């Protein structure tokens, strides 16, 4: 069994299932801690099932118990290992589906995606929330593009392919326009390294 300590939850990977446990955080008082852990676990489970119902591959949820979600373990290749333009285009299509239902993923990176049976599985909705506005959708895309830049030399192609996939269903132009504005804001401007 492997254990991964994320920012918010502990993930225990077993042979056929994955447990995600929001453990008590000692830094916050018990009352607040319990409210957060329970409501977030519930929200995550709910979003996973909405995503699934709308044609986005996700693990099956086997059990939700207080601060713990038990889900099916998806066996396949991490997208990080098998990335190409076709994969990125399919990710674009799936993200468009999420966004049409007002689901903001919050953390789209190749680390959180698994290719299995030629389908892209979204395995981590820990930072997801429901909000049908253009701004968080634009930020969602931006987070993905940033992660491409960090990992792949052909990030420009991958980005273009994603956008093609994201556009296929239509109704996404306002998000793409907002994305451009987000990237032009001071905090996101890429800087050319200077010498001397």
């Amino acid at each position, binding site marked *: 069994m492997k254990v991964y*300590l*994320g*920012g*918010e939850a502990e993930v225990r990977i077993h042979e056929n299932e994955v447990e995600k446990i929001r453990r008590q*955080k*000692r*830094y*916050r*008082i018990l*009352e*607040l801690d319990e*409210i*957060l852990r329970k409501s977030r676990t519930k929200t995550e489970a709910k979003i996973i099932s909405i995503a699934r119902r709308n044609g986005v591959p996700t693990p099956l949820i086997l059990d939700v118990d207080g601060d713990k979600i038990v889900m099916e373990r998806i066996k396949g290749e991490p997208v990080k290992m098998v990335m190409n333009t076709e994969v990125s285009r399919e990710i674009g299509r799936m993200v468009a589906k999420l966004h049409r239902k007002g689901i903001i993923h*919050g*953390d789209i990176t190749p680390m959180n995606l698994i290719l299995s049976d030629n389908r892209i599985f979204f395995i981590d909705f820990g*930072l997801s*929330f429901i909000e049908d506005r253009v701004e*968080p959708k634009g*930020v969602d895309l931006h*987070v993905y593009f940033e992660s491409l830049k960090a990992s792949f030399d052909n990030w420009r192609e991958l980005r273009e392919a994603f956008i093609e996939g994201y556009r296929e269903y239509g109704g996404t132009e306002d998000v793409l326009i907002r994305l451009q504005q987000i990237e032009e804001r*001071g*905090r996101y*401007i890429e*800087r050319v*390294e*200077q010498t*001397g």
Partner: protein
Amino acid sequence: MIVLGIEGTAWSLSAGVVDENNIILIENNPYIPREGGIHPREASQHHSDSIPDLISKVFSNVSPEEVDLIAFSQGPGMGPCLRIVATAARLISLKLKKPLVGVNHCLAHVEVGRWRTQAENPVVLYVSGGNTQIIARRGNYYRVFGETLDIGIGNGIDKLARHMGLKHPGGPRIEKLAESGREYHELPYVVKGMDLSFSGLVTAAQRLYDNKVRMEDVAFSFQETAFAMLTEVTERALAYLNLDEALLVGGVGANKRLQGMLRTMCKDRNAKFFCPPNELMGDNGAMIAYTGLLMYRHGYETRVEDSAVKPDFRIEDVEVRWD
């Protein structure tokens, strides 16, 4: 090398003198609003009235000839306040014929924190009146990974304090009250990825007070909620960036409960927690002086004609040429 630094981006007016290894002196003369919040024009009036005395005080302890460099906070901050500081810095630079360096105020908080603690490559939580940011270095730039989507946490605390009839500065008074808090009232907890929002939280806490909840419990519930949000995004940045040091800077960082929460969080994930001494937490001239020194040694100098203030100056705009 001896550097004079002048800070005055908001209500604080401060001058500091440092060399490579030591803080030689810090002189403060903060603007204190008679009532309500900070009025930019009143603050700048205070700065302009007080800056001659402040500089004289510095030069009665350090002789002007000894000073090798003048550093000033160029932004971000309130335009009228920034302009007073920049004018004074230019004047001193021209008069003493010593070079001038404009310093980013946020960068100065980070660098003085690293200088005065053993933090090497930390996730920085920067919390002050107007600023609330999660910062870490990536290559030759600092980058803001998360920040407030509305008001800074310090301004939020001040707004709540004023609503409860407490005098400026509200932070220490809220902290004191919270120590006697017993009952937690649920308040809006808004974290989005690594970004935060405080305005709804402030309004809801004000409503608790209006509904006759004990002041101690309002302060307690507010602090517990706001500081848990700050600690959570700091932890998220540590996990996301795979770093194992956290550094707390900025005026709100003097709060012992916030320090305690971050210390516990770090301990539970085997990270190290750092915070500089209180006199360097809030805005101060020494941080500007030290950062000016670093910058000058790495090729930065600001010509007078390029020394216009930058009210929206971002930490990400400065190339970091040092380790």
